[in-house]
């Protein structure tokens, strides 16, 4: 990692402080039209700023795409492609194989540093419509990172449920009403599914835990093969919290263990990377998001208790997996 490009050392960036991290080598510009308080932009900057390497970035149709590449403008100071809703993974896989071919043929000097290939997709693009494409890319073993911006809802189109939407959330296609408590299905365990593909590195990250996140992104960039990152992305518009509370809500998500932070290496070794000092009750996490306000009606309160039980069981499971090292 000694060669130079644009005056910057190649490879993972040395992260000294949040301020230096957040301002260095910006390749995702602030000039975009994401909602104020949107966690997507924080996550994207944390991913891109974790490396000095050249980047080929893909995005699925969704908030990130429609808010950052509106002709004749672009927020991306790196190679970037959007094709459709379901295929950002395969677009990047195609570019990754093009890179292999062109280096073999000598059209790209094989001695120049390898770029990093990163695809972003929302949870709709990842858990639902793009699931097959993502699975295909991971089975074929492309050298790429896929980052799911998981805000648990089709936010770009106004808040429809996805298979990441948690049970009890009110979404426009599964609204809470006099006869319904909202979404009926449990959230799909995408991390386990991607780990089961034999991926060398799978992790859940949250932008509020930026040191943990950068470390994982850099581990992912160092891994050889397809890497899956599930990034919790608090959505001010659809989770319906005030725009200045993104980080506070994110803190409650990680500290309540609704979004536990962990990694799975080679589909087997599981490490918990963040243990909250004071675990926040799930009830408090739900309480700050009006998408769950109907759960606090007496007839729905049992759902909050059930949720706490699920989170406790998941935390227990993760700890046992970690201890077992298998």
């Amino acid at each position, binding site marked *: 990692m000694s060669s130079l490009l644009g005056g910057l050392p190649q490879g993972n960036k040395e992260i000294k402080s949040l301020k230096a991290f957040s301002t260095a080598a910006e390749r995702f510009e602030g000039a975009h039209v994401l909602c104020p308080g949107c966690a997507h932009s924080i996550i994207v900057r944390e991913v891109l700023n974790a490396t000095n390497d050249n980047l080929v970035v893909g995005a699925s149709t969704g908030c990130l795409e429609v808010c950052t590449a509106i002709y004749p403008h672009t927020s*991306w100071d790196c190679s970037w492609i959007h094709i459709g809703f379901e295929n950002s993974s395969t677009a990047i896989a195609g570019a990754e194989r093009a*890179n292999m071919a062109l280096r073999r043929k000598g059209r790209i000097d094989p001695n120049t540093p390898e770029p990093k290939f990163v695809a972003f997709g929302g949870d709709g693009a990842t858990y639902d419509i793009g699931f097959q*494409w993502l699975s295909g890319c991971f089975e074929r073993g492309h050298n790429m990172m896929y980052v799911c911006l998981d805000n648990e809802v089709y936010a770009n189109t106004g808040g429809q449920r996805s298979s990441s939407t948690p049970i009890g959330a009110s979404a426009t296609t599964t609204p809470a009403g006099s006869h319904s408590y909202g979404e009926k299905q449990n959230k799909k365990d995408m991390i386990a599914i991607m780990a089961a593909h034999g991926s060398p590195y799978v992790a859940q990250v949250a932008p509020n835990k930026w040191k943990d996140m950068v470390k994982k992104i850099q581990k992912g960039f160092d891994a050889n093969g397809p890497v899956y990152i599930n990034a919790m992305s608090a959505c001010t518009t659809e989770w319906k919290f005030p725009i200045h509370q993104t980080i506070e809500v994110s803190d409650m998500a990680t500290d309540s263990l609704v979004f536990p932070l962990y990694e799975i290496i080679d589909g087997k070794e599981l490490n918990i990377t963040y243990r909250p000092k004071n675990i926040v009750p799930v009830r408090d996490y739900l309480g700050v998001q009006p998408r769950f306000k109907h759960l606090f009606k007496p007839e729905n309160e049992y759902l909050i208790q059930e949720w706490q039980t699920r989170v406790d069981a998941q935390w227990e499971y993760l700890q046992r997996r970690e201890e077992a090292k298998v």
Partner: protein
Amino acid sequence: MAREKAKRGKVSMYRNKRQMELNSVEVWDGNFANSHALRQASVDVVSAYPITPSTGTVEGYAAHNANGYVDGEMIMTESEHAAMSGCIGASAAGARAATATSSQGLALMVETLYQASGMRLPIVLCMINRALAAPLNVNGDHSDMYLANQSGWISIDACTPEESYDLVLCAFRIGEHLDVRLPVIVNQDGFLTSHKAQNVRPLSDDQAYDFVGDYKEVNSMLNFDKPVTHGVQTESDWHFEHKAKQNAAMMASPKVIEEVFEEYAKISGRKYNMIETYKTEDADIIIVCLGTTYQTAQVAADKMREEGVKAGVLMPRVFRPTQLDMLAEKLKGAKAVVCMDRSAPGGQTGLLYQDVAAALFNTSARPLLSNIVYGLGGRDINIENLKSIYTHAKAEVDAGKLDGAIQRFVGVRGPELKYYSVEG
């Protein structure tokens, strides 16, 4: 299969790739001919998914790859949609990209067809024409070709394995030309062409690559000196201008296509034309058709001429973009023009009929213009069938009017099916 004699140790223009010594005449089916054209064009990324009857194109290429004759990458995806998505990603990254498909595969790909053309990526698609379900059917008709009709891809039609080989090589030159920069489909009939081994006179590997030439990268994602954003969002403010510019490139492409055909003729001795004709100059009755029917109709036309009927045949070699002026020029002297569409019309006239009607409407030529729907799902069309179509048209010419309707279904069991009744 071709006898492949490797020249061991000979290094081609690219590293790691063996050249293949070919006989002056090989016996290849349409799929295998395609696979050699892709190999000789030194495609950087083939991203594909198997489907009958186009699988052979991909299998042939995979065999060349397995034996060291390919220096590019192959991505065997999990669906046709992903196959084209991979082509788009590779092409945007500065690679020559190609794939093959048929029928349902094309249907699954449709979303990405529009994305590829809208992003101005010169991908080449070898299409082996097959009927669209339901009912499920693996045999040839042109419903997949017609489905791609407005996708913004240049669409060229081949009748034989040799023609498909030639036209796939030409397709790279056409699509990658900087005045065009559009994706290109090369069609051939499922089974009738794709699976029938026939004589092919291939170019040598060197000749073929010299003709196709090095890929000219435009806005490559792997050029990090100039980061490019591909596949942007436009709404009512810019979308129209983008599509208008894309269509302008399509409309300007015939000039390039003719130049490429001209140059190819010089090295191969085989000259292709925007519109192919057989004995149309003095013809009273002209059949307009696509694919292998063009060949059968030529035999039928000769037989009709023996019977004193001046018969001719016309095939739009380049199906899209449509050449209205050329069509009108070739058809203006005819007394009857029979447009034969091998695709279920879906409650309208066939696309060839619509093209020809549009071509003639603003001219003074007023031949009797009829539409035949035939051959769906691979239903055979033979010389006798085509002779009877000529004979029917001759009777209409003698009567001075159509036989009661514009559209007829030919070769289908059950009651006679005629639509769009006309008096004169």
